[in-house]
């Protein structure tokens, strides 16, 4: 055994399954010890079962041990929209919220469609948060996200981008999208697609249904998303190139993804906390904080998404953290930009699914850590020897009210304002080093 740098003693393990060698069955909330050396996991074992001399010992005091989360979908707004969020504040929110790594989308100004922008993002992240959270930029798939010309994906990959996406501005031209998938695969970048038929979906941010009819707002039907989900799955099948579908919001998409997976098509998908808890009714009273794209749908969609997350049809969770300034959201509904923040609240919000028995702790850890790690080939902690020692000590019982002061993100646009969440990150370690 190497010299142990860090011993975390007596943490509560949330699951009945154990990741270690003999898979011996544990009782829920059994105590475990975590051994770390050189920034990596050395061992995780029932508490007291291993004799080790450690340079530093942290008494976990019954806090729940979780892997550091990975958020595959955020918007950090820098460069260009620093009044909403910058890389320093976004990473601070990630650190406090339990995210050891985040991927940031390309819709900055200028767009992240060349190595200069990627390098700027990475430089800013390293300067503000040298010990993490880790930042992994997503390249713009087309120049300026205009959907007309491929961005220099090879250069972007070399500069540090880990995926490519036209997030927010889906590529209308299916031929171009096909070529983009092929070219991205050539330079080894997975493609993330925001599925939305742009002709069918002018009513961004509002579901077409009963609430849109009552409020007199233009809505977009679920088919606007599902049609492009079908397109992407068929292309992935034809080309044998993986595709990752961003922020899936409706039952129709879930059923198409299930069909694709049954046939062995390389499709993966994410959904976001808000699609698992909120419905279109959250927009009543013209609540711009609930305006998000794709829009909040119906109870039936919530049920379908929760089932799909449990069964693995939906592979991972992501926040789609989309900060906007107060004055941008304090407008009539149609004028407000789409999106809500998530880095500060996502862990506690989605832990509710585990507390309520809708999701097992293993599924939770897969959805937030090992799943995104596998899809995007990022370091992720499955608590197996050699994994990065990115982990949280989490108090699942601590209640806190969501107030602007509690949020580290520069923007406070979350429909959770005023509600109470359970669960706080009490300590956050990245590569064995404590950052919170």
């Amino acid at each position, binding site marked *: 055994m190497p010299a142990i740098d860090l011993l975390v003693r007596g943490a509560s393990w949330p699951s009945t399954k154990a990741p270690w060698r003999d898979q011996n069955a544990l009782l829920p909330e059994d105590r475990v010890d975590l051994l770390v050396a050189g920034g990596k996991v050395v061992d995780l074992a029932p508490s007291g079962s291993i004799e080790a001399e450690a340079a530093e010992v942290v008494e976990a005091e019954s806090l729940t041990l979780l892997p550091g989360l990975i958020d595959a979908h955020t918007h950090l707004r820098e460069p260009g929209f620093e009044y909403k969020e910058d890389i320093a504040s976004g990473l601070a929110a990630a650190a406090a919220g339990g995210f050891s790594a985040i991927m940031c989308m390309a819709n900055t100004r200028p767009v992240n469609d060349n190595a200069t922008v990627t390098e700027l993002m990475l430089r800013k992240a390293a300067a503000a948060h040298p010990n993490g959270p880790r930042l992994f930029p997503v390249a713009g798939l087309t120049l300026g996200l205009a959907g007309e010309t491929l961005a220099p994906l090879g250069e972007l990959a070399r500069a540090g981008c880990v995926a490519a996406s036209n997030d927010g501005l889906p590529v209308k031209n299916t031929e171009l999208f096909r070529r983009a998938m092929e070219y991205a695969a050539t330079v080894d970048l997975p493609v993330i697609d925001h599925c939305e038929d742009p002709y069918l979906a002018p009513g961004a941010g509002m579901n*077409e*249904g*009963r609430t*849109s*009819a009552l*409020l*007199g*707002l*233009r*809505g977009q*039907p679920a088919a606007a998303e599902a049609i492009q989900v079908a397109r992407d799955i068929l292309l992935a099948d034809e080309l044998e190139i993986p595709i990752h579908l961003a922020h899936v919001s409706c039952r129709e998409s879930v059923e198409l993804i299930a069909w694709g997976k049954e046939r062995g098509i390389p499709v993966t998908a994410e959904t976001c906390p808000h699609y698992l808890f909120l419905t279109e009714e959250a927009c009543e*009273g*013209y609540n711009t904080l609930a305006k998000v794209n794709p829009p909040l749908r119906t109870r039936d969609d919530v049920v379908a998404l929760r089932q799909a997350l449990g069964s693995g049809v939906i592979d991972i969770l992501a926040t789609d953290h989309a900060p906007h300034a107060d*004055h941008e959201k*304090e*407008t*009539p*509904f*149609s*004028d407000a930009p789409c999106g809500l923040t998530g880095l500060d609240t996502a862990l506690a919000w989605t832990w509710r699914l585990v507390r309520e028995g809708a999701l097992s702790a293993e599924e939770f850890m897969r959805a937030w850590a090992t799943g995104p790690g596998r899809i995007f080939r990022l370091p992720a902690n499955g608590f197996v020897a050699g994994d990065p020692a990115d982990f949280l000590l989490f108090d699942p019982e601590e209640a806190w009210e969501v107030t602007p002061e509690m949020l580290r993100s520069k923007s406070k646009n979350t429909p959770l304002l005023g509600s109470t969440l359970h669960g706080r990150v009490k300590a956050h370690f990245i590569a064995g080093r404590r950052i919170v």
Partner: protein
Amino acid sequence: MQWRHKDLLDVTQLSPAEVEHVFDTAASFLEINTRPVKKVPTLKGRSVVLFFAEPSTRTKTSFDIAGKRLSADTFSLAKSGSSLSKGESLKDTALTLQAMAPDAIVIRDSRSGAAAFLAERLRCAVINAGDGWHAHPTQALLDAFTLRGVWGNLAGRTLLILGDIAHSRVARSNIHLLTSLGAKVRLCGPRTLLPPMAETLPVSVYTDLDKAVRGVDAVMCLRLQLERMQAGLLPDLREYAERWGLGLRHLERAKPGAKVLHPGPINRGVEISSNLADAAESLILDQVASGVAVRMALLFLYMTRKESDMTRKESDMTRKESDMTRKEHADARD
């Protein structure tokens, strides 16, 4: 009746008793509009801002006349002449208006929810004169008031709303109000102009006009906007007029004596045939006359609401004015 509402955002806020009270008040004002001198001092010294960020002639004029006949000072603010066209946010416009301390703001805006947005931020009364596709409560009230004048009561009557319902704030508010007054409502139009999930509304939905019109007591035609063709919702005006344009022949299938309404401005030969618009069954001009009385009633109710909050002196003045109003009312009933 003590008026409990600060703002009129949609008819859904009003109880049936409150709707009756609006109608009774409007009925008492109708007579003023037939006098040689059409002015009473009821709202003297009060000010109303007419904030119309979307083009409107009849609604704006109707409110303007209603205010002036009650001796209120009315001020118009159009989008082109306002700071909104200079990029000011609605919030800042609201705060600016607030600082000028009007007693009421009448707002027309193309964005659904704009009236509610202002009402949350302003101390004065906010009256919705049409917000996007959402609501047009004063139009619905004047429509029902017009029909009440003809029938006495709307309970048990069947009305057909015909045309572009999906994009119509008039239809939305009328569906709520007419059904709350005990009428049955039918909708008819091509599927592209019906709201999503129309079947969840308390209405019967038709696409065939001949079937929809059978046995109804009145038909409310809606204006067809030319943008609907550009958006690909309809092929052309000729085909629309052929299938969903209301003509005299349709009225023959309705109840004898059935009436026709239209919120205006009308497209003759499109949603309504020209001869029907001018026929005895048409209540279109009665609607305009009712509109002034109903808006006088609404301005009166919303602008004299806050007696308890005022200083004694103001309160006394208000009482004197109320006495005068009561006297006017008494005159009107004679």
